[in-house]
C-alpha cells in the first residue's frame, strides 16, 4: 500500500484556464492509494513547496505527484522538496498538464479529460516507483573551450582568472575568429584590433591556459565531470618549440595561397602567419600551396630557417585531454551568396560580401584601408543590400541581428573614406541595443540615402562598362528603382559553421534546422545544453552581436565553473542493472550498448553493468529476452502500469 499525495498546480491561469484544476484534484482523491490531493495557484513558489513538504510529514506520504508543467522545467525543483522532507527524490512523478495539455487546447472539457488520464497513469506508475541512490563521482577541475573567437577567448580568460586550467582549442592557426577581421565595431566605432588583440595576448601569456591552435576535437568520451576528449593536432610543418618567429621563411617563400583572413581578396605565402597580430606569432605551411609539397622541390624556408624549425615530415598527432566541463563557441560562417544568381556575387567584380568589405576598411587589409574596387577605381556610388538570405523563407528564416548595424557602420566608413553616394536598401531597420538607435540617427544625418525595399537584382550596366545597375522596389513611395552604382555590398545571413553538425555529434548537442546549437531552455538555461557539462556561447547558438556574445561567454564560464568548483558531483541514478537470476547470458546487452557499460562476468556466467559508464537510455533492457535487465525508473512494470492508467480514461 502506498500513500500518495497529488498536488495540482494552476500555474496562474496558464493551466487553470483550460483545465478544471479543482475537479482534477477531486478526481485524484478518488484514486486508490491517494491520501491527499490539493490544488494551488503556484506549486513551484515557496508556499507551494512548503505545502508539499508539510503534507509529506503530516500524511506520511511515500509518493508525490506534482501535476504541473513539464518535468524538464521543474522536476529538479520538486525533487529537492522531497529530499529536504526526508523522502527519496525518485519517489516523485510529474504530470505535464501545461506544455502538453493546457497550452495546446482551448477546450476545457478536453483539457480536463486528458489531464485526468495522464494523472491516472502517473498514480499507477507512482505505486511502483523505487527509491534510488545517486552516484557520486569525482570531478576533474579543468575546462575545455572549443573555438577561440571572441566568445571562446573571453570564456577561457574568465575561467583561467579564477585559477582553473583551461584548454583552448582552435582549428585555425591563430585565435581571434571573425572579430580579428573587423576594422571598427558598431555603435561606438571602437577599433576592433585595439580591444581584441590585448585579449589574444592575455590568452597566450596566461599560465592557466593551454592554447591548442591548428587543433580539432575528434572524439569525446565520458560524461559531466569526467570527459576524455581526443584532440588532433594538425601538422604545421613548423616546429613551434624551435621557431623564434623571425619570419624570414615567409619572406623567401615563393608559394601562393589564398588569404583566408583577407577573405580571398589577396594571396598570401604558403608558409605564413595569417595576420601580423596573429596569436601565436609563428608560421604554418599550407600544404596545398607549398611548392615543395606540390612539385617535390623548393624547401627555401628550410634553408633560411636558422632555428631548424621547418619539418616537412611532421604528421598529425592526437592527444587526450581530461576535463570536467566544456564550452563550445564555434561561431559562424556567412551564407554563400553565389547561388543567389540575382545578385551576381562572384560574377560581377563590383559585388562584395560584408566580410570582404570589413577587410577593405582595415588598415592591415589588402588595400591598406583604402576603399577601392577590384580594378583600383574609387567607387562613386555604393549600394548596401540588407537581409540577403536572412528573413527569407527560401534560405534562412531568422534575422541575423547584426547586419542592420554593420551596414550603418559601413555607410559611415564609406562616407569617411570616399566621396561616394551611399544607398541602404533595407526591409526594416533593426537597431535594438544600447546606443544603436542613436547610431542610426547619427548615420541618417550623414547624408546616407535610405531606401525601404529589399535589393532585388544586380545587373551590368549596358551604357557604362564596369558599372552596375541595382533594382529594388521602394515600398514607401511604391516606385520601382533602378540605380547605377559602382559597388554593391551584400549583408548575407549568418549561419552555423559548415562543420557544426559534426561538432553537434561529437558533443551530443541538439541543433535547430539550420544547425545552430539548441540551448536547454530558451530563457532559463540559454547557455546549457541537453548534454550535462557542455555549454554554448556566441553565434554557434544563434546570430548575435559582440556585446551579447561576450556576455554569453561570461555566463558560460560561470556555468562551467558551477561544475568544476565541486570536488564531487551527483549523477542521475537512473541506470540499468542485471538480475543475475534471470540472465541467460545471450550478451545482447553487451553488443548493443553505445557506451560499453554491460560486460560478461565469466566467473558468474552472467552479464553485469558498469554503472559508471551507463547513461540510462534503457536500450539493453528492451533487447534483453529474459527481462533480466531493469532500467531503473523506467522499468517494464512502471511503463506498462502508466500505459494502463492512460488508457483507462
Amino acid at each position, binding site marked *: 500500500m502506498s500513500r500518495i499525495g497529488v498536488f495540482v498546480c494552476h500555474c496562474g491561469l496558464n493551466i487553470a484556464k483550460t483545465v478544471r484544476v479543482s475537479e482534477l484534484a477531486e478526481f485524484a482523491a478518488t484514486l486508490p492509494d491517494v491520501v491527499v490531493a490539493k490544488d494551488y495557484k503556484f506549486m513551484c513558489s515557496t508556499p507551494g513547496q512548503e505545502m508539499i513538504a508539510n503534507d509529506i510529514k503530516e500524511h506520511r506520504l511515500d509518493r508525490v505527484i506534482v501535476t504541473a508543467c513539464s518535468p524538464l522545467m521543474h522536476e529538479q525543483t520538486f525533487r529537492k522538496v522531497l529530499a529536504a522532507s526526508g523522502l527519496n527524490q525518485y519517489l516523485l512523478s510529474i504530470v505535464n498538464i501545461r506544455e502538453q495539455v493546457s497550452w495546446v487546447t482551448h477546450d476545457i472539457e478536453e483539457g480536463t479529460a486528458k489531464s485526468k488520464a495522464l494523472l491516472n497513469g502517473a498514480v499507477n506508475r507512482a505505486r511502483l516507483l523505487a527509491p534510488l541512490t545517486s552516484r557520486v563521482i569525482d570531478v576533474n577541475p579543468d575546462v575545455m573551450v572549443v573555438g577561440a573567437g571572441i566568445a571562446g577567448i573571453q570564456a577561457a580568460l574568465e575561467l583561467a582568472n579564477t585559477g582553473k586550467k583551461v584548454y583552448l582549442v582552435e582549428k585555425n592557426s591563430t585565435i581571434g575568429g571573425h572579430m580579428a577581421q573587423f576594422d571598427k565595431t558598431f555603435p561606438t566605432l571602437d577599433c576592433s584590433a585595439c580591444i581584441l588583440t590585448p585579449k589574444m595576448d592575455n590568452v597566450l601569456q596566461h599560465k592557466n591556459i593551454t592554447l591548442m591552435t591548428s587543433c580539432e576535437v575528434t572524439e569525446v568520451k565520458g560524461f559531466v565531470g569526467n570527459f576524455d576528449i581526443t584532440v588532433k593536432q594538425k601538422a604545421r610543418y613548423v616546429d613551434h618549440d624551435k621557431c623564434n618567429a623571425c619570419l624570414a621563411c615567409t619572406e623567401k617563400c615563393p608559394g601562393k595561397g589564398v588569404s583566408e583572413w583577407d577573405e580571398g581578396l589577396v594571396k598570401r605565402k604558403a608558409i605564413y602567419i595569417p595576420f601580423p597580430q596573429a596569436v601565436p606569432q609563428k608560421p604554418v605551411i599550407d600544404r596545398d600551396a607549398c611548392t615543395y609539397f606540390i612539385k617535390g622541390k623548393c624547401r627555401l624556408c628550410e634553408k633560411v630557417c636558422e632555428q631548424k624549425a621547418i619539418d616537412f615530415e611532421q604528421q598529425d598527432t592526437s592527444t587526450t585531454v581530461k576535463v570536467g566541463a566544456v564550452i563550445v563557441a564555434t561561431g559562424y560562417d556567412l551564407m554563400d551568396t553565389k547561388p543567389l544568381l540575382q545578385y551576381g556575387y562572384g560574377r560581377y567584380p563590383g559585388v562584395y560580401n560584408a566580410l570582404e568589405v570589413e577587410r577593405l576598411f582595415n588598415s592591415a587589409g589588402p588595400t591598406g584601408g583604402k576603399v577601392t574596387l577590384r580594378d583600383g577605381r574609387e567607387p562613386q556610388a555604393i549600394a548596401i543590400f540588407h537581409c540577403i538570405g536572412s528573413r527569407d523563407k527560401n534560405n534562412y528564416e531568422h534575422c541575423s541581428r547584426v547586419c542592420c548595424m554593420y551596414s550603418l557602420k559601413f555607410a559611415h566608413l564609406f562616407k569617411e573614406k570616399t566621396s561616394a553616394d551611399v544607398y541602404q536598401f533595407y526591409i526594416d531597420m533593426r537597431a535594438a541595443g544600447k546606443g544603436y538607435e542613436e547610431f542610426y540617427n547619427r548615420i541618417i544625418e550623414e547624408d546616407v540615402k535610405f531606401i525601404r525595399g529589399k535589393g532585388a537584382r544586380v545587373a551590368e550596366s549596358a551604357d557604362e562598362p564596369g558599372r552596375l545597375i541595382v533594382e529594388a522596389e521602394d515600398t514607401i513611395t511604391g516606385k520601382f528603382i533602378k540605380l547605377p552604382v559602382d559597388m554593391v555590398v551584400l549583408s548575407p545571413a549568418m549561419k552555423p559553421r559548415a562543420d557544426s553538425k559534426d561538432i553537434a555529434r561529437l558533443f551530443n548537442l*541538439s541543433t535547430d534546422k539550420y544547425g545552430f546549437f539548441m540551448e536547454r531552455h530558451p530563457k532559463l538555461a540559454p547557455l546549457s545544453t541537453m548534454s550535462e557539462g557542455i555549454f554554448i556561447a556566441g553565434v554557434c547558438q544563434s546570430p548575435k552581436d559582440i556585446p551579447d556574445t561576450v556576455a554569453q561567454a561570461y555566463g558560460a564560464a560561470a556555468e562551467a565553473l558551477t561544475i568544476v568548483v565541486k570536488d564531487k558531483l551527483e549523477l542521475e541514478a537512473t541506470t540499468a542493472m542485471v538480475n543475475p537470476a534471470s540472465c541467460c547470458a545471450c550478451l545482447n546487452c553487451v553488443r548493443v550498448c553505445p557506451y560499453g557499460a554491460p560486460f560478461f562476468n565469466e566467473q558468474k556466467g552472467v552479464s553485469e553493468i558498469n554503472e559508471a559508464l551507463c547513461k540510462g537510455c534503457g*536500450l539493453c533492457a528492451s533487447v534483453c529476452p529474459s527481462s533480466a535487465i531493469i532500467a531503473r525508473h523506467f522499468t517494464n512494470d512502471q511503463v506498462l502500469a502508466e500505459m494502463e492508467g492512460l488508457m483507462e480514461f
Partner: protein
Amino acid sequence: MSFEPKILGIACNWCTYTGADLAGTTRLQYPQNLRVVRVMCSSRINPSFIFRAFQLGADGVLVGGCHPGDCHYNTGNLYARRRLAVTKKILEFSGLEPGRFRVEWISASEGNKFAEVVTEFTEQIKNLGPQTKFKIEQ
C-alpha cells in the same frame, strides 16, 4: 457523438518529448486524443509495450524519437528504427490495420512537426474507427 480515439504516444526525453513541450510553449493547437509516456530513449521501447497498448484498447500508437544520427545516446534510435519496423510488420501480419502504428523522428526544435503529426495521425485514426483486433475487454 463522434468517435474520439485514444492514442498512446511514447516519446524520447531529448527530442520528441522536448519538441512536444515546444509545441506547447509556442501555443500550437492539436487534438487531445494523444497521451504521452516519456522514456529516456526510443530504444527503451520494447515491442511488447506496443502490443500491450493495443490490448489495452489504444486505437493508435505513435512513437517519437530523435532523427536517426542525432540520438542523444549515439545509436539508440537506430536500434529502435529496426525493431519498430519489424514490430509494425508483425502487427499488420497479425491483422491490425496499417496506419494504426506510426514512428516519427521529431527533434527538440520541431514543435511544429509534433503538432502536425499529432493532428494528422489523430485524423487518420478517426477515419479507421475503433481498434478491435487486439483489444481485450476488461
